[in-house]
């Protein structure tokens, strides 16, 4: 990955909607160069998706977000992959990570309600061959997600006009 691509990634992570023209202006190059670079990043699977970060509390809808620690029967590396695959096939599972430490897999789950989370854990997750234990943590409040602070208070620390 060259310097231009690194800078493009930084900008896209900040705001995926900047667009080629704006990115080109900001990085001092032309639009076609940016387009080429982005296309390459996409085709190599470095950029996998563009999405929006949502503050669920403000939607007024119910939601059930959870972080789940999963312990699996210790197996060779291939074994983790097989179990991970069984878990990540579910749409509600948004992230599956292999972790160091006291548990093996960390999962984030986004369901419509907390009850749905509970059902998923008891009926789907625990039923998977190889899963020996789970520890479910409901997300009570998101202060910050995707690098954005959700709190409303944006009072500036600086004087609005200064020399």
């Amino acid at each position: 990955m060259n310097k231009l691509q690194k800078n493009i990634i930084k900008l896209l992570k900040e705001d995926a909607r900047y667009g080629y023209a704006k990115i080109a202006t900001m990085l001092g190059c032309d639009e076609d160069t940016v387009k080429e670079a982005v296309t390459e990043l996409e085709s190599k699977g470095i950029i996998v998706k563009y999405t929006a970060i949502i503050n669920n509390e403000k939607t007024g809808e119910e939601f059930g977000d959870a972080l789940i620690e999963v312990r699996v029967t210790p197996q060779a590396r291939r074994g983790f992959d097989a179990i991970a695959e069984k878990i990540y096939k579910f749409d509600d599972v948004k992230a599956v990570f292999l972790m160091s430490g006291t548990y093996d897999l960390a999962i984030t789950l986004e369901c419509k309600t907390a009850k749905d989370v509970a059902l998923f854990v008891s009926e789907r997750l625990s039923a998977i061959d190889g899963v020996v234990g789970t520890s479910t943590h409901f997300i009570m409040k998101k202060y910050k997600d995707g690098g954005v602070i959700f709190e409303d208070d944006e009072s500036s620390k600086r004087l609005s006009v200064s020399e």
Partner: protein
Amino acid sequence: MNYEKFINERAKNIKPSGIRKFFEIVEQRKDVISLGVGEPDFDTPWGSREAAVRSIRKGMTHYTSNYGLLQLRELISEYYKKRYNCDYDCKSEILTTTGASEAIDLALRAVCENGDEILIPEPSYVSYCPCVVLAGANPVAVKCNAETEFKLVADELEKYITDKTKALILPYPNNPTGAIMERKYLEKVAETAIKHDILIISDEIYSELTYNEEGHTSIASLPNMKERTIVINGFSKAFAMTGWRLGYVLAPKELLHAMYKIHQYTMLCAPTISQYAGIESLKQGFEDDFTSVTEMRDQYDMRRRFVVKELNSMGLKCFTPRGAFYVFPCLSSLGMTGEEFASRLLEEECVAVVPGSAFGESGEYFVRISYAYSMKNLEIALQKIADFVKKIKSEIK
């Protein structure tokens, strides 16, 4: 109580800052997106903040040497050597001050005599004129213009030099124009200064925010210039330490000594806690080769390009500034003064920019727009400015 008789003439005659006046108006309105700020939108790095807190906890809350902590001066000396190729002895040629603001004041008070003329490129930062007046000398505005990207052109400068000229203030990278002086321009100015035997007071506070291959050149690094240059810089912009009030002067020992004497009696020493924070900022800089400074500059660079492009697209002619974090677009295409534009923009679109007249007569048909803001704020503000410009243009038709 008759105060008139107690307040001296000089203090009476200083005009209040045009920026402050505008600030009062902006503060009264809610939901203003301000592009009028003159300080970075980055907070002081954690390491420096922690160093300051540690020093408070350890009780390092007493006076330091008038010159400032030796360790700080050593680091400043190293910094100017490494970044700008200038050699200043940390014991006799460096003075730590309470912000670059104090350094400007000291330099002028040490140098100005009644009747002296001090040349100041215009548009300029608001403090130079009043400080020259307070020091008892006469400020002479050297008008710069957009055609020459607000650089100080030596031939123009010549026209303003008289036998009373003592010094030239050289503020580059520049607030409010964002102009810089590349080496080849500095060389011409240096020639003129040597020819007429005048001092240069070089305010380099925005030195780290230079957006070109060459980087910032200090006039003091040019041959035969160190002996006639007072360099002023500080921690405010490069290290996001505006509120800490930490700056420094670099000058030949005879000049420094005069400034030191004034500083000794009027300020005693720069804030001790700030000095410890400054030490940490420089140490960190040397350790990571100033990557955090470079990253901050790269951030500003992107915003600079974006803002210039947007302003030019909406028909506000604007040269591409290569320093600081300001853009200085011209309003002549709208037939408005900066004050008219800024008032109406504030009133009708809730966006605040600073009228160019706050920086001298040469700025009358300009406004200063700061891009020390997040991209998100800039995008929203510039869209509103674009809508406003469109409206004005249709009114003209």
